[in-house]
């Protein structure tokens, strides 16, 4: 009997180890309802332990509620200013690209499910006047085309990026005259390569004409392109993108010509513009709404204020999928971003706080309230290496982009749009550069204040029970 029991226990151990290492494996997906039910047991335990947690005073010095309210107002104003500056930075700078077009501002909400080449964006108003096929740009660069209208009233669109397999754009070298013989078609990644840590792979060129130069900048030119099935208004819409940049021509050994993109399509898309004809009927565009003031926040009770393992920086909150909370949702306390939801179950969620090794954020830095915001892209948690230290973030960058940030003095960090549940403009604690390493820069943040009674989670539509 004991040996049979031992065998069963070893089987259970193997199953648990398998789930811990590969929770998305197919057998566990099939057993997901059972796993969800079983994982409810630990949460009952958390609720049993919660009275003990709540009866004890918070160790960190909490600011007065009046101070918190004043700070929340300041943060809200700073967030407004930042979002305005981000949209200003995303507008085309060249006068010829600004004329004859209507620019509909949109903010990236996240990637479409199961496709890294599609992003979901939200306009600042409804989708009036927007059609499939309208070009989407960021500054002077072509990004992709509208591939679908997801929610007309909320202005939610799907955009297929130029890295997608199905997107083809007519192009010409920037120095060639429009309509000249030297033409090419751009679209998709070279040999279907996916992005790596050292940068976005080049875009593929199709059927370049014989006189295509080996170097130089390439811009969109749809004048001579025959778009698949494009006619009438769709063809006219495609022409709106003429003149917007695509990238720099590079010759890769053994691979021929390709196009080096100048935008990080993975974490560098935050604010975009949909190009519309001037007579599209959209009128004056509304300003984007401030996420700190909208109604998409759910108050959450803290079930566990810290992970029992000193190597992790996280907490457990009451509130889950039934409250509209999903993985990746932003978590605020004291008016500042303190972390993101790591895992959301039906009625509770795990939160990775700033510094936790599993935390990933897309951030914008601003050295002063009037300075130009610098989109940093993806930044990773680096822990407090010792308990009680300030949280650290690691910004992997191969460029000298950090030189835009002040050395020695602190600067402001905000969330950027582009990831599910993380809207642009949420302020973080002030940061400073603490180390510059081989492959990136380390930021040290002032320790965020966790006020147990003031924790809010970004939520979407509530899931039916």
């Amino acid at each position: 009997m004991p040996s049979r029991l031992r065998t069963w226990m070893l089987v259970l151990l193997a199953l648990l180890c398998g789930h811990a290492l590969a929770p998305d494996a197919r057998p566990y997906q099939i057993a997901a309802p059972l796993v969800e039910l079983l994982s409810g047991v630990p949460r009952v335990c958390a609720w049993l332990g919660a009275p003990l947690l709540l009866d004890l005073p918070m160790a960190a010095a909490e600011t007065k509620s009046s101070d918190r309210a004043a700070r929340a107002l300041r943060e809200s104003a700073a967030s407004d200013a930042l979002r305005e500056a981000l949209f200003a930075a995303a507008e085309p700078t060249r006068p010829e690209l600004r004329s004859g077009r209507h620019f509909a501002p949109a903010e990236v909400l996240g990637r479409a499910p199961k496709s890294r080449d599609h992003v979901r964006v939200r306009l600042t108003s409804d989708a009036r006047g927007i059609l499939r096929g309208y070009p989407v740009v960021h500054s002077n660069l072509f990004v992709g085309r509208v591939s679908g209208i997801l929610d007309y009233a909320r202005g939610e669109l799907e955009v297929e990026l130029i890295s997608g397999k199905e997107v083809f754009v007519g192009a010409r070298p920037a120095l060639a005259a429009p309509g000249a013989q030297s033409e090419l078609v751009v679209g998709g990644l070279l040999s279907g390569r996916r992005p790596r840590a050292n940068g976005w792979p080049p875009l593929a060129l199709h059927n370049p004409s014989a006189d295509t130069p080996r170097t130089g900048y390439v811009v969109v030119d749809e004048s001579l392109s025959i778009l698949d099935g494009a006619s009438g208004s769709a063809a006219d819409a495609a022409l709106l993108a003429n003149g917007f940049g695509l990238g720099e021509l590079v010759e890769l050994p053994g691979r021929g010509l390709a196009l080096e993109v100048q935008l990080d399509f993975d974490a560098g898309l935050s604010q975009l513009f949909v190009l519309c004809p001037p007579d599209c009927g959209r009128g004056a565009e509304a300003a984007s709404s401030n996420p700190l003031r909208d109604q998409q926040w759910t108050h959450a009770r803290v079930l566990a204020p810290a992970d029992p393992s000193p190597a992790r920086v996280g907490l457990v909150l009451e509130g889950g999928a039934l409250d509209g909370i999903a993985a990746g949702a932003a978590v605020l306390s004291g008016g500042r971003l303190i972390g993101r939801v790591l895992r959301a179950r039906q009625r509770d969620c795990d939160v990775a706080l700033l510094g936790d090794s599993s935390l990933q954020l897309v951030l914008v830095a601003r050295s002063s309230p009037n300075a130009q915001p610098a989109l940093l892209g993806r930044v990773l948690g680096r822990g407090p290496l010792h308990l009680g230290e300030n949280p650290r973030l690691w910004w992997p960058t191969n460029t000298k982009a950090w030189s835009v940030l002040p050395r020695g003095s602190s600067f402001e960090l905000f969330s950027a749009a582009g990831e599910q549940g993380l809207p642009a403009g949420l302020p973080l604690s002030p940061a400073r550069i603490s180390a510059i390493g081989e492959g990136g820069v380390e930021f040290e943040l002032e320790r965020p204040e966790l006020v147990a009674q003031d924790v809010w989670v970004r939520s979407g539509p509530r899931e039916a029970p």
Partner: protein
Amino acid sequence: MSAQQWRALVWLLLWGSWLAALQSRVLAGQWFGPFVPELGLVLLLGVCARLDQAPCCAAALLLGCARAGVSIEPASAVLAGYLAIALLLTTLKRWVDVEDVFFRGLCAGALALVFASWLQWVEARHLGAALELGAELAPVAWRGALASAIAALLGAAWLARLPGLKPLTQSWRSAP
């Protein structure tokens, strides 16, 4: 199983939950820095010394549940860690006296370190990152292991005598 034994298991779950909550609260308050023992593990060592394999595994799963309830680590990783510890302890019992205070202290320190390494390895696998165990674990896990060893030396036997646990340790007491 008698009603008393069932009640004892419920008490074990309750005590485990409260100890895990206390561990979480102590870490949040930074009262002792990273010198916070793995209290569930210490309690498991305290009760497992007197239990047969079946109740020992049940106790490990209950205490693992309690620990996972306040943790952001995957529950399956925590449960696997506790179950592995229970299986290891029941195997060790054949050769060594696990009720010996010094052995218990040593065992708690080593197991706390292995448990922390396991959780960190799981996390590294999820992130797709390579884990350099020495460098990554050095700052905090060693201190947690030391605290667990001291807590087991001083308090494991006391924890096993917490109210409600008596039927658990008496009725399943292994034959000498």
